[in-house]
């Protein structure tokens, strides 16, 4: 079975910049491999909104975005190539840091094998349900040496978990529908 990853929003933002191979960071490398169908990526509207919000609103990124780089089109195209967008909700997990919960809900509901993040609060968990919580370099190392990661025993899976909700109709310009598997191209061509 193919590996299913949940990439935290910071991994997506890092992957938006993919310079030449020698200078590419681990996050961009993970997304490149996912686009080559080496593994599947799960995302949620929460992650999408966060990635687009950072790329469009944070001053550093608004200054550093190339002319012609459309964050929304890039995110949707990347996800269409390598994964699915699913909407999830669930019970509180991190009492003190509830804002990280949507990432964990997605990992649990999507049956992710890995949750890739730089967030220390999540990394501290080490595992959540089936998902190993790892940094991008740790994931790449584990992917290149699968024996380094044993699967989480099924009996450890908790009964009470996140629930899937129907996803609303896509509004973006290039979206892969998780239900239909179809991709709609932007009406006006690429940006």
């Amino acid at each position, binding site marked *: 079975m193919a590996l299913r990853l949940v990439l935290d929003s910071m991994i997506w933002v890092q992957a938006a910049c993919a310079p030449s191979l020698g*200078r590419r960071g681990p996050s961009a490398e993970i997304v490149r491999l996912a686009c080559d169908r080496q593994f599947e990526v799960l995302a949620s509207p929460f992650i999408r909104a*966060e990635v687009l919000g950072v790329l469009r*609103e944070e001053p550093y990124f608004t200054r*550093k975005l190339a002319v012609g780089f459309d964050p929304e089109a890039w995110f949707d195209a990347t996800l269409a190539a390598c994964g699915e967008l699913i909407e999830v909700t669930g019970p509180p997990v991190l009492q003190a840091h509830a804002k990280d919960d949507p990432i964990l809900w997605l990992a649990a509901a999507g049956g992710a094998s890995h949750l890739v993040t730089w967030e220390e609060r999540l990394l501290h968990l080490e595992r959540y349900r089936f998902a190993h919580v790892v940094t991008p370099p740790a994931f790449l190392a584990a992917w290149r040496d699968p024996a380094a990661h044993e699967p989480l025993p099924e009996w450890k899976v908790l009964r009470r978990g996140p629930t899937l909700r129907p996803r609303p109709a896509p509004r973006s310009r290039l979206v892969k529908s998780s239900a239909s598997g179809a991709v709609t191209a932007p009406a006006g061509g690429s940006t």
Partner: protein
Amino acid sequence: MTTRLDGTVITPMDLRAHAGEFLDRVRLQHDTFIIERRGTPMAALVPIERLRMMRETAAQYSRLMSQLQGDFLEKQGVTPEEWDREATGAVKAYRARHGSK
């Protein structure tokens, strides 16, 4: 069964009763079927070549955009390390301000 621009709409019951026929039409005639349950589109039957082509097109677009952004940053003198550092900090700050709870 109704035919629209994006394909012929069928129900799960149609699919169950005539799965082989639909698969033949998809494979041989390159037809597309939209499977609806209670008026809501749930899934589609499309030729596998089309699915692969759509994914490959999306991947190429994604790679082009990332390369465009990477080249731009390189000209600006921004290193991948700096970009990664800013991304981590910005997402943490954004989540603290806008998180779901």
